[in-house]
């Protein structure tokens, strides 16, 4: 499912060539690396990204079943997504090139900016369900979706979903102004693995919004899995559309917004949810 979704994402990516062709192109391409690069770290960084995405996907319910519904699934997702920090920084550092290192730095700055409100947002969803288990969060939404009565947390989650996959307006770590940034020195299979991992991460992040805020597999008529797919596609579509509407957000601007505006908002949202949960 994930692979399919990543495929679909790639189709509507800015690159107009089909994803299959792009994959082929990168497979045909030679791997090439810069002088005095730390090759083991390049390989580690590039492969860590898709691995982190797949591990994060382990707690994703497809319909109502997931590979492993851990009792702390929400925290697990957060931890695996944080592995991307290490992955992108390594990929930026290891080729020994200034512009790709700047890409790596940027992702850490971005991580620090988005992580605080992001954690509060997913905590709010867990708080609403009174459980860290993803399955329990879905069950708690059989009636009202969390997105309806926690709109702030949902909005913040969507922002951070873009940021964690360094996608759309948050694509500064791999921005065109640093000639591709962290991905700028990768070619051939390395590039394929890294960019594929990024797509996967975006898809997983979008898909995780469904159990957290959009009621998971709950919905009339259709079976659970169909609702999951539909909702994931809708969130993905929205994220991809957002990319066309706004320029790249620079972190020196976003970090202040995230810490001074979004974090207090997220705390307030959590407070409201906590009061509701206590009162019911």
């Amino acid at each position: 499912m994930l692979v399919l979704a990543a495929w679909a994402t790639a189709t509507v990516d800015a690159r107009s060539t089909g994803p299959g062709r792009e994959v082929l192109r990168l497979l045909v391409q030679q791997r090439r690396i810069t002088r005095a690069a730390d090759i083991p770290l390049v390989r580690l960084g590039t492969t860590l990204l898709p691995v982190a995405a797949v591990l994060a996907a382990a707690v994703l319910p497809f319909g109502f079943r997931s590979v492993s519904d851990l009792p702390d699934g929400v925290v697990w997702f957060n931890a695996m997504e944080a592995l991307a920090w290490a992955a992108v920084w390594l990929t930026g550092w290891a080729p020994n090139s200034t512009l790709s290192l700047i890409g790596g730095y940027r992702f850490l700055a971005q991580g620090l900016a988005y992580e605080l409100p992001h954690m509060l947002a997913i905590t709010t969803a867990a708080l609403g369900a009174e459980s860290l288990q993803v399955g329990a969060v879905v069950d708690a939404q059989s009636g009202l979706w969390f997105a309806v009565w926690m709109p702030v947390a949902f909005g913040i989650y969507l922002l951070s979903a873009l940021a964690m996959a360094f996608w759309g307006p948050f694509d500064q770590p791999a921005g065109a102004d640093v000639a591709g940034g962290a991905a700028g020195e990768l070619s051939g299979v390395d590039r394929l693995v890294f960019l594929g991992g990024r797509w996967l991460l975006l898809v997983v992040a979008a898909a995780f919004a469904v159990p957290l805020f959009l009621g998971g597999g709950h919905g009339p008529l259709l079976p659970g899995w169909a609702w999951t797919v539909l909702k994931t596609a809708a969130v993905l579509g929205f994220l991809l559309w957002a990319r066309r509407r706004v320029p790249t957000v620079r972190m020196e601007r976003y970090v202040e917004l995230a810490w001074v505006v979004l974090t207090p908002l997220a705390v307030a949202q959590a407070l409201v949810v906590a009061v509701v949960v206590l009162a019911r």
Partner: protein
Amino acid sequence: MDLRTRLTRVALAQPAVLLVTSPGATRERLAVEAELERRDWPQAAGPASADLVVFAGTPLPVREDDWAERVWQGVPAPRARVTVTDAVHAAHALDHGHATLLKPGTQHAGHQGHMNHQGHGADHEHESGHGEHGGAHEEHGGHEEQADHGGHEGHGGHEGHRPNGEHAAHQGHGHMDHGGMDHGAMGHGGHQHHMGAVAGLPMAERAADRDELRLDRLHVPLGPALPDWPAGLVLRLELQGDVVQRAEVDPVPTPSASGPAFWNEPWLRAMTGEPVTVGEAARRQCAAHLDSLGRLLGVAGWIDAAGRARDARDSLLGGAGRDELVPRIRPLVRRLRRSWTLRWLLAGVGAQARGPVGGDVHSRLIAWLDAIEHALDAIDGRERLPARPLRGPRGRVDTETPPSQSLLDALPELLEGAEFACARLIVASLDPDLDELAPQQLPVGRNHG
């Protein structure tokens, strides 16, 4: 045709193109960009992601440094390169490059040949791979085999290049550069011999940063092959992390094709007394600003709007009528004016109180939008351009110093202390046209179609 060849053919049906423009080759760049747009071939951000390198104009070495060669070295196989020295042949050159790319041999070795091209009465040269393109091409000159596996030298970064036992005192030499710019795409290193080098890379030294921390300072030459970068501009930056500590503009190599600066052409022609209509000048001005706008938006990461600006520019230069242009350009201008995210992100960057570049990046963008709308109104003007003042897209063209010179002079001060992303925005918001700096030759009736 074996499977591998067929696979390659499918994989490279739309090769990623790295377009590298030399100063003086604006016309060629525009032709190639329009052709890429028509074919739907993507542009690569750097050599590592490119298949086909297109040099618009013959690349000239900067300070004896053959950066073009290093760009080429950074491109993974299969690869091909072509040089477009005349706008008319952009499509042919791309075809050649593509054919070379698909030739089975190129998986492992690049071929380069020279070709002369007869057509349109004038001699056009374009260099390209020697694909079997047939027709009007005559080959002459040798084929230079180009080794393709040059990229793997020096993995041995960790095997100790210098037995340097104790760490000794801290200050001074011995600070390893943590990201020496080493492949040619964005610049050309290797000038900092006084700092010593490890693995052939220059090392960093320390200096106080804007918070008065003495951190490693990297010497990074920026340009000339960067996406959305003024053709031929080379900045020598001292970077700490991603903060520009000092910037210096490198002298610009004299363009080989010393035709008139493309964007100033109507006014330069008017200077010689040729009859130039107001509409023609307005059209060029509008296109010039749309070109700058496309770059600025590209650097700002608004790919969608940048693409629209470029499309509008291409149709302007293609001679589209006002009725066709207004519905394309007006909505774009309105959208950019209204975009609060754009204002939020660009306001306050590169702010300067006075001078030729007063305001910040956002106000410069708004000034372009004003000029675009203004020029769009005059696009059908049939009256003759007044002899004076001749105001081109970047300023007066009839003065001693070209307007881009003052833009370049303003750069170092504006860049100091800016973060890398802001520095790119500042350069893009000034968008100096290095064509103007070449010794001007007045055009002799060569009009752009």
